[in-house]
């Protein structure tokens, strides 16, 4: 074995109790960091995947980012516009099926048409506002997870009776409706339509389950009072991270506002960024505290080994060699602590994974944890860097000691 490593290993091994304390300090730091990171990223990923997977990745609707230019704006340099009428109905997407065909030509994913309208649902004397979405069941299965979220039937049940409707389970609970009941839907224009509840759905997102209902496109069109209208396209892409750029391309191509899941949840994602910053700060702080333990131990060993330093230097060891010995001691503690910390972190994660957890907002029954080598590598990197710094300072001090002063002090 290399002499420097041999001396370092012997020092560390001969002070077993101190070494163990330092090692446990690092191990705890690494272990808890891994657990924290796994928990934080796990919950974030779980939340995002619930959010992203249960809904289409991109929604294109009949709005435009900026209002269309008035003909007068093109004709004159300066104009004043007033008294414009607000349209009572939504304009709808022009030539929706041609647009769909065009998108399907290049899009790595799927497109489905839909009609979005609002209505008041009435049942047994209870009223509640809801968002009614008309979908094409044959296409819908390719753009959202709605077919898998349907309870007490399937999405094709919409074909089984005229004016069939699938409502959120929480919405059903709220109004007291069950499968087979006939509920009334009142549109904004005052028209009332009777619909039969053919199934319920449960997306796991409380807001959807409480306020949404699905019908066939035709039913939603009748409710909106606009036959033949398609006012939204639901789009799913193969690579969810590409959703934003795909949405941009669709918008550039069609002129219609296309909102990717990232844009729709911008606030949430920026909140996650802050959360991540906090997480890494906490993780860094844990490891920093652990590194103080290493510093303390290397300082103590250095202090106790003052005489040995004098011996080594009198024998002809250079300052650099002496520094390396103590630096390696710190790294050995850091390395062993890191490995132990990995085991501890994995064990803590496994333990947390067994704890049952019920959230009013999510369906998760267990704490969501995310396992990735990145967390382990990151914790190791910080722990080893902290150990190296913690070891370097006393090592430098040790190497600078003048052997004569130590020998004089000892004699």
């Amino acid at each position, binding site marked *: 074995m290399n002499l420097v490593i041999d001396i370092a290993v012997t020092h560390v091994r001969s002070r077993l109790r101190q070494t163990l304390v330092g090692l446990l300090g690092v191990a705890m730091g690494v272990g808890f960091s891994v657990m924290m990171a796994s928990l934080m990223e796990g919950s974030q990923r779980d939340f995002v995947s619930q959010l992203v997977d249960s809904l289409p990745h991109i929604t294109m609707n009949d709005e435009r980012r900026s209002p269309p230019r008035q003909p007068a704006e093109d004709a004159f340099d300066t104009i004043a516009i007033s008294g414009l009428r607000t349209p009572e109905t939504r304009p709808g997407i022009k030539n929706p099926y041609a647009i769909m065909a065009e998108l399907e030509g290049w899009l790595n994913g799927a497109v489905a048409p839909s009609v979005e309208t609002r209505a008041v649902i009435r049942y047994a004397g209870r009223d509640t506002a809801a968002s009614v979405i008309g979908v094409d069941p044959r296409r819908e299965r390719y753009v959202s997870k709605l077919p898998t979220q349907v309870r007490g039937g399937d999405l094709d049940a919409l074909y089984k009776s005229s004016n069939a409707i699938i409502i959120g389970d929480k919405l059903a609970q709220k109004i007291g409706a069950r499968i087979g009941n006939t509920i009334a839907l009142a549109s904004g224009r005052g028209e009332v339509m009777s619909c039969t509840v053919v199934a319920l759905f449960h997306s796991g997102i409380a807001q959807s389950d409480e306020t949404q209902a699905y019908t066939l496109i035709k039913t939603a069109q009748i409710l909106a009072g606009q036959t033949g209208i398609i006012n939204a396209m639901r789009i799913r892409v193969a690579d969810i991270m590409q959703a934003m750029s795909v949405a941009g391309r669709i918008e550039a191509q069609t002129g219609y506002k296309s909102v990717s899941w990232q844009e729709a949840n911008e606030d949430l994602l920026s909140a996650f960024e802050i959360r991540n910053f906090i997480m890494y700060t906490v993780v860094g702080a844990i490891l920093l505290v652990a590194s103080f333990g290493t510093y303390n131990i290397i300082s103590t060993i250095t202090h106790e080994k003052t005489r040995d330093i004098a011996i080594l230097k009198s*024998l*002809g060891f*250079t300052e*650099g060699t002496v520094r390396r010995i103590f630096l390696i001691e710190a790294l050995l503690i850091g390395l062993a602590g890191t490995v132990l910390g990995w085991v501890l972190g994995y064990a803590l994660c496994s333990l947390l994974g067994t704890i049952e957890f019920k959230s009013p907002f999510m369906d998760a029954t267990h704490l969501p944890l995310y396992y990735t080598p990145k967390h382990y590598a990151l914790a190791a990197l910080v722990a080893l860097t902290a150990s190296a710094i913690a070891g370097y300072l006393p090592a430098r001090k040790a190497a600078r000691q003048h052997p004569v002063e130590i*020998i*004089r002090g000892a004699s």
Partner: protein
Amino acid sequence: MTANAGASPVIALKSVTKTIGDGVVTTLVRDIDMSIFPGEFVSITGPSGSGKSSLLYLLGLLDVPSSGDVFIQGQPVNKLDERARAHMRLSLIGFVFQFHFLLPEFTALANVMLPMRALAELDQHAMQERARTLLASLGLHDHMNKLPGQLSGGQRQRVAIARALANTPKVILADEPTGNLDSKSSEQVLAIFRRLVDETGSAIVMVTHDLELAERADRHVRIVDGRIV
């Protein structure tokens, strides 16, 4: 010294002075001229604080003079950097201190091998063989694998001597090597030194309080208030 007439000194000091302190300056050794020749056994005596050990540390490149020059085998070493001085110490000089100064976690054999491993001129097997031979020649056949804590004072000092001899130094500098030993062990150490001088041709410089031991060296240097008298 007569035996070395005409030989070049292993170590030579020319007008060497060593002072310490910034405000209140203390002079440890004053204007010393001294040469140590191969195969010479020199003893240095003097009252406590007279500068004996300081002189030894200057001879052994553990300390640098405030003024004057130190030569090792004719080469001036004052301006050498820390690394070069360390290498010179490792390959040319062996130290024996009053307190054995062995590494407590290493066996006698491992302690003797330390300087050889640091110099890295021999392979592992050759180093081990040489360390065994040295320890055996000092009567430590049965103690090679013992830790310093398991050895008596005299045995530890002999291990320290074996370590000092590991890299076949040109000079051995011993600072009160018998200061912590009983008379029997002191005699043994002195006999070993004498044998080394006669058999290997290495020079030995021994600082001691014991005048009787000092008189048995080839040359006896007495130092008072940092000056050779």
